[in-house]
């Protein structure tokens, strides 16, 4: 495996398998053809054919849309289409920062193929001028990528929170980083990819933050999502990335981006330009 394979892995979506769906004429996501057919079975809520799915125009408010689609999601959940109902709400938006058109149960987001936004934070320390990263190991009971290596802090941005608020909350829950320290995290860019994962579309954008931590800082997980933490130097991070898929799929991209931004991967790397430009998947390019 080489570093570039992590980018290919996260760009695996074959959009021909999906049809777009829209609310009030605005594209909001992509659903698999079998899901589109299933949504067509709710003719008071959706209009579906083999090219597109539209939410019925009589559903004009956030509340009406959320309630109607929420009932459909619950049906499909009970029919076994997806699992892991979480009672967390994610916004459905046309672009980041736009007013949400409705909300969706978090576990149904991949089935509806709506754009999901998250925060990922690289927590690092400086040791005699060399950077070291705090790396977590995901708990074995996580529904997605159990046991894989992960960031110190990462999470999806739920309805009602901005990226920084979400980051502060996750810092506390995932690593016991106090707000005063979490607010020192610096935004450092964003990564976008479209991936098929467990048969669903993940249309994801991650806001990246870097937080320099004091040498004596020790993370402690509170929400049970991370089993353990340890510190790695950048050579070790790169060699694990080069060896295989020990890191969660999207964490690999954030780490490659970190290694590029901090000069650890240099222009003499044979894939430098594809790695550096690979962090943003444009809709008109592979």
């Amino acid at each position, binding site marked *: 495996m080489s570093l570039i394979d992590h980018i290919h892995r996260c760009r695996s979506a074959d959009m021909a398998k999906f049809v777009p769906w829209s609310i009030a004429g605005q594209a909001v996501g992509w659903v698999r053809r079998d899901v589109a057919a299933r949504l067509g079975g709710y003719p008071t809520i959706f209009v579906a054919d083999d090219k597109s799915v539209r939410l019925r125009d009589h559903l004009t408010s956030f509340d009406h849309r959320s309630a109607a689609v929420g009932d459909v999601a619950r049906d499909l959940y009970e029919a076994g289409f997806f699992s892991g109902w979480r009672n967390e709400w994610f916004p459905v938006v046309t672009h980041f920062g736009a007013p949400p058109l409705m909300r969706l149960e978090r576990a149904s987001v991949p089935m509806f193929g709506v754009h999901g936004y998250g925060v990922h934070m690289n927590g690092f320390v400086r040791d005699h001028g060399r950077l070291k990263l705090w790396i977590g190991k995901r708990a074995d009971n996580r529904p997605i990528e159990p046991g894989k290596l992960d960031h110190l802090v990462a999470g999806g941005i739920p309805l009602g929170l901005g990226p920084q608020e979400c980051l502060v909350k996750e810092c506390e829950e995932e690593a016991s980083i106090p707000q005063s320290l979490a607010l020192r995290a610096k935004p450092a860019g964003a990564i*976008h990819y479209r991936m098929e994962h467990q048969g669903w579309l993940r249309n994801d954008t991650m806001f990246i933050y870097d937080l320099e931590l004091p040498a004596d800082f020790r993370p402690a997980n509170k929400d049970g999502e991370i089993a353990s933490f340890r510190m790695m130097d950048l050579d070790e991070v790169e060699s694990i990335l080069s060896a295989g898929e020990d890191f969660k799929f999207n964490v690999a991209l954030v780490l490659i981006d970190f290694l590029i931004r901090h000069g650890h991967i240099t222009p003499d790397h044979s894939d*430098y330009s594809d790695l550096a430009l690979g962090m943003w998947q*444009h809709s*008109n*390019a*592979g």
Partner: protein
Amino acid sequence: MSAATSSLLRLFRRCPPADLASYRRFVVADRHVGWVKPHFAQLLAEYPSVFYLTDREVHLHDRLSDVEDRSKAVAEVLSKLHERGAVPGWRGELYPVNRRFGEAPLLLMERAATPLFGLQTYGVNINGLVRDGDDCMVWIARRAMTKHVDPGMLDLVVGGGQPYGISIANNLLKECAEEAGIAPILAKHAKPVGLTTMIIEAAEGLRVGVQFNFDLALPADFKPRNDDGEVSEFQLWSFARLEENLRDADDFMFDAALAKLDLLVRHGRVGPEDPDYLDLIARLRAPAPFVRT
């Protein structure tokens, strides 16, 4: 950030997206490597042993099968076109023709001709930074009023094209010494931080650029120095002043402005609270406009 603040997308509005429909694809050995304007394509068609035109493409003749033959044949044509005034600004520097940095070149071509063929070219840029407590300051150059292109505009402290046959690292040392008097002992600490890309229509044709960006921490008492008369002055700016300028003015050359925007994004000066954040990031990493074959 108040709602009244001007958008950083201003930079991209300065150069609207290229209308590629008005160009012909330039194809070498079945690979799409550039875009040629119709009037220049007609000039190339006058040299049928080297170039031939199809419906929407300009091809390098297939009998030219290796990098030496192609480079030599194209150089002869370009030299004649230069004498006819069709290749202005001859530089005497060879650039590689490929679709990806580091890929073996299909041919080498005179730098001045690269926009006429819409080729992808590479360059290096160094952000000269000075720590100021928790913040950073950045050195800015102003181009001399005697410069032919963009006189008086703000520019990178160190930036230059990447010719064939020199490594990025060595080119960086050379440009640092020539353009700002930064000695190798300082310049070698420049840290590569990623790439920015640009696709802009210029008078001569399409400019497709990939810029290798570096951050270089400079001592507080260091002053850049230009000996070749191309820079009228250097100024040390705060990130706040840089951001304000990029929002409200068109003072920077385009490629310099891209590099400075990337600097503000990487250092967290511009963050997700900016409504254009994701748009800006996507535009800094525009993919090369070539059809994959």
